[in-house]
């Protein structure tokens, strides 16, 4: 690149200087350009469909639905990143979701009542949730053991898991769908009863702003402590302002989705409020699945970047031999990625079964494909060692926005799949092209 620049005539140099200035400014903020690009792509997709639909798509209620629909896949994609980064694959995630969702349903309707913990017992849902998370961890751990310690390829182990676990769902319930979950548990699925309300939503925004500013200050102090170069002040302020604006904006957006009219009337009666003309507006705020996605993304990013475990996963993905020779317990590291995946599947299963108020035989079916697609669209490389957790979450939203936008505009589901498949290939193709160009520089 540098060679091309030196021989360039004056006007081009002028243009180059401008583009250099912009690039320099972007570099100063240390924003991940890939993530930034994906955010723009996501916005582009949404506004494209928004215009197609005659300006109906982008409104709070639709966006909340979209995010809730993507939440399970987004949560699982954070774990899939670590699995793919360490050169494995997990095809069984959809079936784990199926088994755990069915377990939640059976625990609450059948098994726990048999032990004397009935649907009326206030902590039943917590017990069920804990057992479900445990089942997820056990399944993941068992598969991880076969992969890491016995040495069976992950593709085979989890392909076996995909088949046998889906069969287990049928065996668990003798082929029947199960419904009737505890009300508290159903909140995990979001919707009208599973949103945290106006005040709590603003509180979340406040906490987020404090956390963003705190993190920026902390990082700056850390770098100062050792006398390392720090970001220019304007960049720090800009980043903080963008972060806080995003948190406040999203909260305001969530708070502008309201309780449906019928329920609002009921709410007014219950709280002794006289309904104003035009109906009472009760803001719903963030639904629980969105908070779970945010929480899981933060926790997983922390694990991946600030803990030894994450460091080892990436180092192993970059060079398994080097990791082994550095004295890392690589087998246990790999097994842990699968345990974590199992737990994340159990969280996704909680959202899925809570939304259904029960479990059918096909909960989570084909999820493995969407989860892998989300991770890959989010920049995770099958060559190992490369991939970020926020990227995968964005990838999940990109894929879901496509599906939602198409179906919103009346495109049928087979066509949606055609588009999703093509987008997957194009996204990865562009990424591969960019990386190849980047590596020759």
């Amino acid at each position: 690149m540098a060679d091309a620049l030196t021989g360039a005539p004056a006007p081009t140099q002028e243009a180059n200087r401008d583009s250099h200035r912009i690039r320099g400014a972007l570099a100063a903020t240390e924003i991940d350009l890939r993530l930034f690009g994906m955010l723009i792509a996501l916005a582009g997709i949404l506004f494209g469909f928004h215009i197609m639909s005659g300006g109906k798509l982008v409104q709070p209620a639709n966006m909340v639905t979209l995010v809730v629909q993507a939440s399970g896949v987004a949560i699982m994609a954070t774990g899939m990143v670590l699995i793919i980064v360490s050169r494995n694959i997990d095809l069984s995630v959809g079936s784990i979701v199926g088994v755990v969702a069915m377990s939640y349903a059976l625990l609450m309707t059948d098994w726990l009542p048999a032990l004397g913990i009935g649907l009326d017992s206030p902590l039943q849902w917590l017990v069920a949730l804990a057992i479900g998370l445990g089942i997820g961890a056990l399944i993941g751990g068992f598969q991880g053991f076969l992969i890491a310690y016995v040495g069976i390829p992950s593709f085979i182990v989890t392909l076996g898991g995909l088949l046998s676990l889906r069969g287990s769902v049928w065996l668990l319930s003798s082929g029947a769908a199960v419904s009737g979950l505890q009300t508290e548990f159903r909140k995990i699925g979001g919707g009208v009863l599973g949103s945290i309300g106006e005040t709590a939503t603003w509180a979340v925004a406040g906490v987020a702003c404090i956390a963003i500013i705190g993190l920026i200050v902390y990082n700056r102090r850390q770098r100062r402590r050792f006398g390392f170069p720090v970001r220019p002040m304007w960049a720090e302020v800009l980043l903080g302002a963008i972060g806080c604006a995003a948190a406040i904006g999203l909260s305001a957006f969530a708070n502008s989705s309201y309780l449906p009219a019928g329920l609002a009337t009921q709410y007014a009666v219950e709280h002794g409020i006289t309904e104003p003309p035009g109906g009472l507006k009760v803001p719903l705020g963030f639904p629980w699945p969105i908070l779970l996605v945010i929480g899981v993304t933060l926790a997983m990013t922390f694990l991946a970047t600030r803990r030894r475990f994450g460091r080892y996963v990436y180092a192993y993905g970059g060079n398994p031999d080097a990791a082994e020779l550095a004295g890392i317990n690589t087998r246990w590291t790999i097994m842990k990625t699968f345990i974590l995946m199992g737990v994340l599947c159990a969280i996704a299963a909680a959202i899925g079964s809570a939304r259904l108020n029960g479990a059918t035989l096909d909960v989570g079916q084909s999820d493995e494909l969407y989860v892998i697609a989300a991770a890959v669209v989010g920049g995770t490389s099958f060559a190992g060692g490369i991939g970020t957790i926020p990227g995968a979450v964005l990838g999940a939203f990109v894929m879901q926005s496509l599906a939602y936008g198409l179906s919103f505009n009346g495109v049928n589901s087979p066509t949606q799949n055609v588009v999703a498949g093509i987008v997957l290939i194009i996204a990865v193709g562009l990424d591969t092209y960019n990386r190849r160009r980047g590596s020759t520089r």
Partner: protein
Amino acid sequence: MSEAATATTERVPLVEMRNIRVAFGGVHAVDDVSIDLNAGEVVGLVGGNGAGKSTLMRALSGAHRADSGEILIGGQPRTISNPRDAKAFNIETIYQQLALADNVDAPANVFLGREMISHLGNLDDGAMEDACRKVMGRLNPNFKRFATPVKTLSGGQRQAVAIARAVYFNARIMIMDEPTAALGPAETAQVRDLIRQLKTEGIGIFLISHDIHDVFDLSDRISVMYHGRLVGTMNKDDVDTDDVLAMIILGKKPEEASREELAELKI
């Protein structure tokens, strides 16, 4: 750090490997080899492909277990069954290619497997970068790229990162397997300077190399291996390159070789 090693001037060799055997199936990759290393000394290990040099060193670095034989570290018999054991005895290995995780940065590589953590158990990247800057400042003062993945670095810089890892963790015994094989002339010179510097700090180095000039330039003693056996260990000053080449090719000491065999080599 490694300055401490300079103080320990012991009569006992740093490392003694006695009667080491390593077999793969029926093949003796290393057959009854004994070798030793003193503080501040470089022992060059030479031989043709498959002579068993790397396998012998892998037994010392913990990458492969010896089937029989004894390893003494500072006069004490020790068992080394994995890389962690070796590191606990201050044995560090610089491999020609396998050394680094390409996708993480230099500090992460220097501390790989032995990260500095805060009291909450989180990675202390600031402290690690700081320590890495200090060590690299000694080894390669021009090095500035502490935040990019090491795959973007030059071969010499990568080797410096690998050596920084060994130096930071007080290596007393260093195994270098073809440290200059992938490097250009300028970078090779850099690594040679590094080796000389490490030597003055009292570190003992096993140097495996195909490059006979490298070996003569840097080593105090030279051990020649041939088909898994040790042909002999000589002081560098007692032999010349022709003698060593003859040993590598014929598997015999020059005085044992017949005149015909030696004559054939000269052609």
